[in-house]
């Protein structure tokens, strides 16, 4: 067998984490991107900066704050305990929460760009045809910005697959629950099991390359220039 059983487990977990995170971010990132694209509020700058924070912050900073915030004495930890969910660190959903924050800009920024590039005219035209705001969004804005959504989805998914620092800080390295592929590779390298490390790392390398290749060669079909 090329990969070990625990490698397969780690890969499956990684894919599940990336899928769930991407789906949640579609729901969460779209309204944020829409607001950022259309608002003239003075909060646009600060909110945009918060969304972009994970691009510049070291994952260890994010991971450390998440560990403290989601602990029993942290604000998030108190909240989740009050809701009866228990504490998030060392759980799959804790990783999801961390990943949602960590990958937020990869979802919001491409979608925001797509919304901005539509401009006001198609939406105004739809409005004169008496399309309600929601209708305008779903029948005009969404189809026109579909390429942006595809890019955002792929980037979010791929970025979450590559996540490491945050998982190391809040994951606890539990097989099948929080031990994702990147952490598994780290363990192999530290334990000097270079053969295993090479195989799993190669899988991730090929995966990342193929994702980016698809992204760079993909042309939205039926799009009129």
């Amino acid at each position, binding site marked *: 067998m090329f990969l070990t059983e625990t490698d397969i487990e780690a890969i499956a977990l990684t894919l599940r984490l990336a899928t769930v995170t991407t789906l949640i971010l579609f729901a969460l990132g779209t309204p944020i991107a829409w607001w950022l694209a259309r608002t003239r509020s003075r909060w646009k700058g600060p909110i945009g900066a918060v969304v972009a924070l994970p691009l510049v912050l070291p994952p260890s900073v994010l991971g450390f704050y998440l560990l403290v915030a989601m*602990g029993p*004495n942290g604000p998030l930890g108190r909240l989740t305990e009050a809701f009866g969910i228990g*504490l998030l660190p*060392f759980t799959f959903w804790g990783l999801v929460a961390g990943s949602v924050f960590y990958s937020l800009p990869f979802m919001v920024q491409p979608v925001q760009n797509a919304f901005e590039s539509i401009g006001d005219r198609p939406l105004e035209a739809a409005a004169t045809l008496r399309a309600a705001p929601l209708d305008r969004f779903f029948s005009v804005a969404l189809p026109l910005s579909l390429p942006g959504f595809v890019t955002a989805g792929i980037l979010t998914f791929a970025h979450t697959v590559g996540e490491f620092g945050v998982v190391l800080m809040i994951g*606890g*390295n539990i097989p099948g629950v929080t031990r994702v592929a990147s952490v598994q590779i780290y*363990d192999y390298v*530290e*334990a000097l099991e270079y053969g295993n490390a090479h195989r799993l790392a190669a899988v991730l390398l090929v995966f990342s390359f193929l994702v980016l290749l698809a992204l760079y060669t993909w042309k939205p079909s039926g799009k009129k220039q």
Partner: protein
Amino acid sequence: MKDFTLSSAAATALILTLFAGPAPLISTAVAGEVQIAVAANFTAPMKAIIALFEEDTDHTVKASYGSTGKLFAQIKNGAPFEALLAADQKRPKLLEEEDELGVPGSRFTYAIGTLVLWSADADKVEDGPALLKSGDFNKLSIANPKLAPYGEASIETLEALDLKDTIEPKFVMGENIAQTYQFVDTGNADIGFVALSQVMEGGKIVKGSGWVVPSEMHAPIRQDALILESGKDNPAVTELFTYLKGEKAKAIIHDFGYETD
């Protein structure tokens, strides 16, 4: 004859000093720099020892702290450390004997570690084995046994109590003993196996509550130090090793709950 010896000694010293670099001629010991790798469990005592050593000798010590597994892998791949203070004997021995990356004969046990089952909660740990048996905790934080000897000792302790399989689903693993401590200290894990040195100051546990694991429940955590190839010709490294064996350093090491030979 006497004069001759003295002047030739002076000349030799002068030549040696000139070759050693632009150090002031008046100083007999040239202030040097040491770059060492230290196992995470020894962080606190090492910082105290380094402060004293730098004061006493004018040398500077740059220390990197991490899991013994990581430091070992880095050394094997050319990290510029001049000495290793490991958390075990196995890896320094390998470096010395198989990989020939260490200075033969420089290896010695600088500390014998103690494992403690610890909680940040002051009332949580009274009777360690009873608590482990009761399962009355959310998570048990241990150092990754593949990378850190304290993790290995934790597993042996649980095996001695015949509880390993029952408790395994509650394991969370830190990459090294520092992260293992962090999981417990932030309260995310109720209890964890950490190094006594991490929770001890001046000979007693200063925070939370703990059960010191009797040393017969696991193989002794003998922590060996080794001078590495790149530190072979650095007298400051030799001085640091002599210092580590001295009474001043030993007092600190004991203060943090370690035994010495």
